[in-house]
């Protein structure tokens, strides 16, 4: 710290303030949105959920700062422990009596009375760290054996998550893995083979009955938005989508105003505080507000991408690439599904949706990116 002002390579001279400030602002805005979606239509308003999110924002900010201070390069040696811990958590959550389930997915570990840990969220970050660690050791020299190793490293957490089953997180991981393979230097022809294999695997998974019917309905119903629902599950999904589109569309250009949206205030959109939080933004703040939020998220993505470009080493570059793709896939899938251009899967909107594990994971990931940014000259 003593040479902070004199040493031009000091990490503290290279903090990405735009990234840090935008991240915290979006998270705080998310807390407000969750509150607006959960306070109820009439006084006395419930503030519990909103306060919980604020607490998570504080915890997330602290962790983000801590990881920024932490020299990410130490992970080049320790990544197997991080990756291994994530795998362990994914196994533990599947154990009967330890993991608790919500809506058919066994994906949470109860910690105290306040917090439920969702290992699949952490595992996304674990996968990125693991991949970056392993791939950076190969230094771009990827023969078939090494590609298979990398694939295996990605497939293990994905497989465990599928067992919960948590389809949304798996899909994000697929996107992240593919992008990482691309950036790590896997040749296009090999990538093509992997892509075909992935499509075949997806078809196999759907056909094999591994997925629950409601998951298949969610996936396929967006393709039949204008038709009559065939099953009760599909009807629920359609209803959700209809109400979602109505909420966003009725916001118009400038929105109905904070706490003034009937869809949000009266709870017409199911799952609004979590997966469908974007509808609360769309209804209350309209095209201007929702556009601004997407813009802010875009700024974050851009800063992460820029850090990947500037990173001092392959490990940092791959780390940032993974985080960036994770964000992009989640944003596109989440916002896309609320507007009916993507199938409905349980994926939170980064930094905005209600969900402690996801918020903390995202902020920790951005803390790591900050760490890469700060140390790009040292």
């Amino acid at each position, binding site marked *: 710290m003593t040479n902070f002002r004199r040493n031009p390579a000091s990490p503290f001279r290279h903090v990405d303030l735009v990234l840090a400030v935008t991240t915290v602002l979006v998270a705080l805005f998310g807390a407000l949105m969750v509150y607006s979606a959960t306070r109820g*239509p009439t006084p006395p308003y419930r503030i519990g959920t909103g306060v919980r999110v604020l607490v998570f924002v504080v915890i997330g900010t602290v962790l983000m700062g801590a990881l920024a201070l932490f020299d990410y390069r130490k992970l080049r040696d320790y990544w197997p422990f991080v990756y291994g811990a994530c795998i362990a958590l994914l196994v533990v959550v599947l154990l009967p009596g330890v993991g608790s389930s919500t809506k058919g997915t066994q994906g949470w570990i109860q910690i105290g009375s306040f917090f439920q840990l969702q290992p699949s969220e952490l595992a996304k970050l674990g996968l990125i760290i693991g991949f970056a660690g392993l791939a950076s050791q190969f230094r771009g020299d990827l023969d078939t054996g090494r590609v298979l190793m990398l694939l295996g490293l990605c497939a293990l957490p994905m497989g465990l998550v599928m067992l919960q089953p948590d389809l949304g997180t798996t899909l994000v991981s697929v996107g992240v893995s593919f992008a990482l393979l691309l*950036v790590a230097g896997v040749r296009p022809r090999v990538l093509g083979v992997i892509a075909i294999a992935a499509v075949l695997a997806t078809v196999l998974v759907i056909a094999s009955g591994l997925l629950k019917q409601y998951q298949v309905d969610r996936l396929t119903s967006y393709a039949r938005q204008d038709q009559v629902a065939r099953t009760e599950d599909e009807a629920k999904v359609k209803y959700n989508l209809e109400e979602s589109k109505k909420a966003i569309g009725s916001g118009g*250009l400038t929105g109905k105003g904070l706490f003034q949206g*009937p869809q949000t205030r009266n709870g017409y959109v199911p799952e609004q505080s979590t997966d469908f939080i974007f509808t609360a933004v769309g209804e209350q703040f309209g095209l201007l507000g929702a556009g601004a939020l997407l813009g802010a998220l875009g700024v974050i993505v851009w800063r992460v*991408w820029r850090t990947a*470009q500037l990173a001092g080493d392959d490990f940092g570059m791959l780390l940032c690439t993974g985080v960036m793709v994770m964000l992009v896939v989640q944003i596109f899938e989440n916002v896309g599904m609320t507007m009916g251009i993507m199938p409905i899967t349980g994926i939170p909107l980064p930094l905005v949706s209600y969900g402690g594990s996801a918020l903390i994971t995202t902020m920790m990931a951005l803390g790591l990116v900050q760490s890469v940014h700060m140390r790009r000259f040292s």
Partner: protein
Amino acid sequence: MTADSPRHRLGILAVCALSLFGALFARLWFLQVVEAEALDQQVNENSTRVVVIPAPRGRILDRNSVALVENRESIVAAIDVQAFRDRSDDEQAEELDAIAAALSRQREPVEAITVDFIEKRMNDQRFSQFRPVPLVEDISVDEEIYLREQADRYPSLVVERQTVRSYPYGSLAAHVLGYVGAITEDEWDERKVSIPGKPYEKSDEIGKSGVERTYEQYLRGKPGKRVYEISRTGRIVRELVDQRVEPEPGDDVYLSIDARIQYKTEEALQAQILKSGSPTPYGAATVLDPRNGQVVAMASYPTYDPSTLVGGISQDEYDRLTAAPEKIMSNRNIQEAYPAASTFKLASSYAGYKLGIITPDQYIDDPGFWRLCKGNGSGCLKRNSGDTPHGSVNLSLALTVSSDVYSYRIGDYSWAWREERGWGDDALQQKIEELGYGSRTGIDLTAESPGLIPTPESNKEIADTLWERDPANYNNDPEQYRDAQLWRGGNSADLAIGQGSVGVTPLQSANAYAALANPESIQYEPSVLKVVTAANQPDDIHKAYVADELRRVDFGTAKQAFLDGFHGVVNSPDPPGTAYSVFQTFPLSTFPLSGKTGTAEVGDEAAQRADNSLFVAYGPNPDNQYVVSVMIQGGGYGSEAAAPATYMILEPIADGSIESFQVPEGGLIDAEAAAERASGIQTSSTD
């Protein structure tokens, strides 16, 4: 850095990310700009509920602004379905029992309010779930206090006040006023949006008859509304106050009816019906202004108190009110047609004059009978009432003494001469109809009958129908049936004295004489309306009565003879007018009166007492302001019941006492006093 470097590959990712964000923005723009309006409307549809607030109906008043129909508050026990559904199942069951018990407390076991009934009401689609659903109407103040005191036992029960119809004068003018009742499914389908700005709810009331129905579009108030925002679970979140519309009361309708004369008319009718001891104690009386067609009074007996219909009635009660032969709710002035008897001589003489069968000055010999054909059977020999020969009579004399022969001759010749004069089969009928007989007058009341002027054609149709329906109508005898099919001179003769199958409503009689009583022989479409105004604002006129001319009757040179003849009926001592003795004590010097008696033979000849008594009068001559038409079923001779009733109706007008008269509270008729008045009037057994 080669082209295949990681930096280059990051560029590919950037392009991908940018295009994905671009897709999101495009979709966002589509939803929030292109589709915004449609989606916003859908949001309003599923998040708001409109609750219609009924508006009070307008009042109905008489021509002097005396309120005949007002609104009063009714205490209604209702259930707040929303509050009820919020309770637990056990609490709901318990509360239902408590409510049922409380509401049944002062009721007979058969009328008890059951849990079943309450549940049905709560699920009744007619009632909005966002307003308390009514369970019992018109509960007493004591009951209200009891229910409020015990409120903690049934928190969902609401006691509220509604406006319902009230009738300060009880049954006065009941048949004219009509009544309101719950709208039926059919009425709702047909009329839900028939009045601009006043759509109907399925729980609404609607005018069912009389003025309540014909002036529904004015009387009905403009419903208000409250718009509530509703949560996904159906609970009211808040009211959107900026969308609130307050209900506006309906217009006040002022009738041409004069409550005082209406009362006197009802009193006279009832007194004479009861005095006659008729086995069919029913009757009707209309007082009409010949100068413009306005109805001043219209009484039908038996009558009823419309307040008993408020809040709905049982089927039994409804059946009792509508069952024949009493037909309590039927307005006999317009809904029923009767033989007009000798009051029809205006029509037949007019037809005879127009056809050239008679001239006003031509004298006809009346030996007491008219021979249609050879033989002495009733088919060939038509007799005067009481076989009285009237000697040589011209038009006015024939009317004064009511010579049947004079009219038989007209009827007979109208048929006998039809070929040689080139008339059609219904020449007589066509001329009669020029006075408005045989078609509806068009009065602004419901269910008016057109009456019937039989023609050879209609006669045959009726016979055919009866025979086809059941040959027993003609004792299974084809001969009798063929005989009935056939129109003969006798039919025309019967028609000329208003007998046979002729059907005339008391109002048609009044309106036919109104044409004569009018100085320009104008006949108007009768009406009970004076003016329609905004509620409680007599100067804000929404619709004023405009006299609607139906026709000008051309009485030609015969008009004076008609006027003289009817004047003689009341005023001529020799030869005695048929109603002369009745009106001897009437103030004729200040209120000159003309009229015509009628005695309709109904049923078989042995039951003479069952004759209908008729009288039509107009005065004061010559500037006639009133035409009175009275018909009393089974009242006997015209001058036995109907003429004395007319006396009783017109006397207070003639002597001016009506001006200071006040209708007693509740409109109740003092039957004893009325009977005493009735007994002071002389009667006679003249047709």
